[in-house]
């Protein structure tokens, strides 16, 4: 028993490079800012919706959170936008990370308290809840961290739960008949694109697709036992599934897609670093490659985010 707990604990906290956490953190916080203004801008319209239509969720009743007013909605919007953009730089990961998590959670409670709950952001909420626990992580740093490993691992688990437990919910609410029913035809009628109308015309294709969705959701946890190459291919397949749902029934699941990058070696994606390399003639001669050369850095080195590397003296 103790041995099993130990090995689960080791798997949950399998170390990852700090640079991966830094990249994931920047991506997640940039997404929060983009979500406010681009992906779910309708949350802001709550300022104009009469309070009588507010039907607080259990968490809103327990805490108890106030009924949204224009002042509350606009204040959260601007404070959260500013805090998320600052947090994206990697500075003050705890002092900024915790407020961003709490404000975004409240933002989502406001969003979901008018009669419809969305199910596309459990992974993102988990990521926001655990990122502050990692502490400082510098872009490009290859030092491995167990705290960072845990943050990414629980985000991955949340992402896969979104698939696996969605299949469970289909069996709970729809039963086995879900697969032979007309759920996709309904979705297409309500929000289908021209491409979807074309697909709907093929006899039995939607029913086959329903079997396929159930199979893929039920088998999604397999991703955790695959070797790296197959794991990445499987994640690629998950992304392609969302591409198809976007192209047919215009459901983006954007927050989930961002959380799912926790499976990827994000530390290799360093746009600011590449930009600087391209501009500086000294390092232009360096061998090309997605990963930083492990050359020792001068004291007081400033990283991608403009942050002074912790533990190194500033200046010569």
């Amino acid at each position, binding site marked *: 028993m103790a041995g099993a*707990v130990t090995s*689960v*604990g080791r798997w*949950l*906290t399998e*170390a990852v490079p*700090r640079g991966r956490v830094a990249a994931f953190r920047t991506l997640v916080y940039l997404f929060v800012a983009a979500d406010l203004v681009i992906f779910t801008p*309708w949350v802001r*319209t709550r300022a*104009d*919706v*009469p309070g*009588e*239509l507010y*039907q607080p*969720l*259990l*968490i809103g009743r327990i805490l108890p959170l106030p009924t949204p007013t224009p002042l509350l909605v606009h204040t959260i919007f601007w404070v959260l936008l500013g805090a998320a953009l600052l947090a994206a730089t990697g500075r003050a990961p705890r002092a900024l990370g915790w407020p961003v998590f709490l404000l975004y*959670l409240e933002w*989502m409670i406001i969003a*979901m308290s*008018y*009669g*419809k*709950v969305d*199910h*596309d*952001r*459990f992974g993102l*909420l*988990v990521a926001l809840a655990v990122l502050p*626990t990692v502490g400082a992580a510098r872009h490009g740093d290859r030092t*491995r*961290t*167990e*705290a960072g490993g*845990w943050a990414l691992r*629980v985000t991955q*688990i949340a992402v896969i739960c979104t698939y696996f*437990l*969605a299949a*469970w*919910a*289909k069996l*709970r*609410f*729809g039963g086995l*008949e*879900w697969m*032979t*029913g*007309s*759920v996709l*035809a*309904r979705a*297409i*009628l*309500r929000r289908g694109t021209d491409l979807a109308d074309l697909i*709907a015309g093929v006899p*039995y294709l939607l029913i086959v697709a329903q079997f396929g969705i159930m199979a893929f959701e039920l088998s999604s946890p397999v991703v955790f036992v695959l070797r790296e190459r197959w794991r990445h291919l499987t994640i690629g397949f998950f992304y392609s599934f969302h591409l198809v749902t976007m192209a047919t029934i215009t459901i983006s699941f954007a927050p989930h897609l961002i959380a799912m990058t926790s499976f990827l070696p994000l530390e290799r994606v360093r746009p600011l670093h590449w930009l600087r390399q391209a501009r500086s003639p000294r390092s232009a001669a360096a061998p090309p490659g997605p990963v930083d050369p492990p050359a020792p850095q001068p004291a007081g080195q400033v990283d991608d985010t403009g942050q002074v590397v912790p533990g190194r003296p500033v200046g010569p």
Partner: protein
Amino acid sequence: MDMLTTRGRAVRLVATAVGAALLLAGTFWGTDDHFPFGPFRMYSTSNPANQPAPDTRVEGVDRAGSVVALDERRTGIRRAEIEGQQDRYAAEPELLREVAEAYAERNPAAPALVEVRVVVRWHGIRDGRPTGRFHDETVVSWRAP
């Protein structure tokens, strides 16, 4: 490598177990009310292969007699939220006045609405495929006094 302390590892293990337990409980017995730990029930209901599909919309009639589509952009209220509270509207059509108010708030220059109604367009489905036929049903309506 940054190692976790024994305590740090134990705290994380317990947090993971508590989160997983809440999510599993939500999936087995919970409802949307238990957000963020409710069941992932998007598109989870089952409908017989030949059952007509509802496509709900909210529309208003303004003083000039024009019909206005009251969508999310015009009222700040999402369609699924109208559907989610449809029983409430049916029991209390007076609530649709709130939709008219939300519209007036966001469109101050537009003529006031004298009627708001929730209309369901029932699309025919055969063998899991749309037939292309439909009929409209007004399920709730409210008229300004």
